[in-house]
């Protein structure tokens, strides 16, 4: 259906990825006080042609994961194999080539477009940087193509971002990501800032583009209903680790990790009759600090089914059902 074959080698493979940010004090003499373990040992595979969802709450490390894959950060440890090549250690020249293949769509269409540039210039910029279409006529033609591909009037090339609505700006952000004809796009909360009615337009656009251009997406989001709609597989992150990873149907129909269950229960559905019947106990407490995470399983202080060993031993992902991975010793 999506042209993806589970047996084919993955387009992207993340192995044991860690991203620790140092916390320092002092200007002249820097003292190392500790580190924020934003991503703390993640394994992930993304198949060609699929949309992989990455969900979790603020500070779980989902955005840092995306930034590592884009190589906007150099990971502390681990490998990121893109089409078989480890990009975690690429040099400048290698990175330039990589960025023709991997692009990004950001959350906020207000701050991610340069307010002093016209839309045409915004879309030409990546082509200039990478020396594609050196001929100006051809480049302008490509700009018009990109705009209509994203559902905008080609004349928008002459507009400034402030002359457009939020939804239109996000379409420009998408067009820019497509300018270099990439194969893989990291969508970092790409529809979160948009109003409900516009959100649905952009979600449909992203789906159309994936089919038309054979794209692969990593879709980072906190809105579970949007992720379920768009993604084939989903990884749930908590405190820098993936706690559950499976197909969307599995995660949403048969969640196994207690955190995933709590996350799903916390989302009210738009139906008063359903909500009147539904009782749930909101998850107590808050996410611990990634500077000083709890020993053992990171979720144990809030977990309704935690046992003594959870305080000491960090559970590794287990394949509870075919292709359904859960990092919990008590699940199943």
């Amino acid at each position, binding site marked *: 259906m999506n042209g993806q074959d589970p047996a084919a080698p993955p387009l992207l493979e993340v192995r044991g990825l860690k991203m620790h940010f140092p916390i320092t004090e002092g200007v002249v003499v820097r003292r190392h006080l500790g580190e924020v373990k934003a991503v703390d040992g993640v394994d992930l595979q993304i198949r060609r042609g699929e949309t992989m969802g990455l969900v979790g709450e603020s500070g779980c490390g989902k955005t840092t994961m995306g930034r590592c894959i884009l190589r906007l950060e150099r990971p502390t440890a681990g490998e990121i194999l893109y089409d078989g090549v480890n990009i975690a250690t690429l040099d400048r020249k290698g990175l330039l080539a990589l960025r023709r293949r991997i692009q990004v769509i950001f959350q906020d269409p207000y701050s991610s477009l340069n307010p002093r540039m016209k839309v045409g210039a915004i879309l030409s910029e990546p082509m200039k940087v990478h020396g594609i279409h050196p001929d100006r006529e051809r480049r302008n033609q490509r700009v018009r193509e990109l705009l209509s591909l994203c559902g905008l009037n080609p004349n928008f090339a002459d507009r400034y971002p402030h002359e457009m609505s939020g939804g239109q700006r996000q379409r420009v952000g998408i067009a820019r990501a497509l300018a270099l004809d990439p194969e893989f796009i990291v969508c970092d909360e790409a529809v979160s800032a948009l109003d409900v009615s516009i959100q*649905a*337009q952009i979600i449909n656009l992203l789906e159309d583009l994936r089919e038309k251009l054979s794209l692969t997406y990593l879709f980072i989001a906190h809105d579970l209903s949007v992720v379920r709609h768009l993604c084939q597989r989903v990884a749930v992150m908590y405190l820098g680790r993936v706690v559950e990873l499976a197909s969307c149907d599995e995660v949403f129909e048969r969640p196994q990790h207690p955190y995933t269950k709590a996350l799903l229960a916390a989302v*009210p*559905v*738009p139906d008063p009759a359903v909500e009147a019947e539904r009782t749930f106990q*909101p*998850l107590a407490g808050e996410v611990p600090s990634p500077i000083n995470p709890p020993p053992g399983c990171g979720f144990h202080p809030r977990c309704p089914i935690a046992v003594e060993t959870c305080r000491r031993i960090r559970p590794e992902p287990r394949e509870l059902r075919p292709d359904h991975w859960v990092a919990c010793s008590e699940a199943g």
Partner: protein
Amino acid sequence: MALLEVRNLCTEFRTGVGIVPAVDGISYTVEPGETVAIVGESGSGKSVGALSLLRLIPDPPGRITAGEVIFAGRDLLRLSEAEMREVRGGEIGMVFQEPMTSLNPVLTIGRQITETLEQHRGADRAECERRAHELLGLVGIADAARRLKQYPHQLSGGMRQRIMIAIALACEPKMIIADEPTTALDVTIQAQILELMQRLTRQLGVALIVITHNLGVVARYADRVNVMYAGRIVESGSAAAIYHNPRHPYTMALLRSVPRLDRPRQARLDPIEGQPPDLTRLDQGCAFRPRCRFAVEACAAARPPLLPIGAPGQHSACFRAADLAAAGRAA
């Protein structure tokens, strides 16, 4: 008698590009102890409408140009500024979206709660501190003695929102206005805060106006709903009526456009095409007309008034409201 009756409230902003009628003649009521949701998208006027009730619109550029806000028998728009200060935080509590920017960063939590009590109650220090302890317990914050000495930046977002609720409840208000109270919070924390607000408002008999764009939140927590579009209320009614038998094309389209966790996955979403209107360029017709599947010629001639239709207490501002029942069932 209604606790709050808003009649034909109009608020406009004068900007460089013209006059923006942000709130354009809205009328609704809130009964004692009930939860009323105001739903709408950015620019629909839902926040400005609520801030206007408390006269918190910065002037200039904003101005309340018409209407009445009858709260417990008095028109708030006619009160003196001193009387209004008594109402704000006294009879009406407020909870805003961003607890970090709505708390004072240089005052302790304890001071911010006691300040409200001193202002409105004229209570002495010992009495204020006793009440502050009690309030923290009420909103589920353990270790009150330590928390009262802390500053906002030492608390998490969820904790700060609990403090905001404690301050809003401090003077035993009759009503609380909550403007996107959980939009900045994570979903598990959002659930904690909303369950807490629901429990407390029920327990204490406080009415609640909650402004939100989250249709799930409305379905779970609201008794009645006002749907806003382009500065007007386009549909109002009980939550059950609005969700199960909407009589305005915008409400119908809004409900259809969201992906839902409780239903099988759809192949494609059904968005509302087009863009929200530019409020400086509205004509005399219905503002939703350019995006409406049901628009007819009459919709261009005049704005449809909000009239009773459907379930008891349900109102819709659509010339074709009567035709929509059949269309809604078919969809």
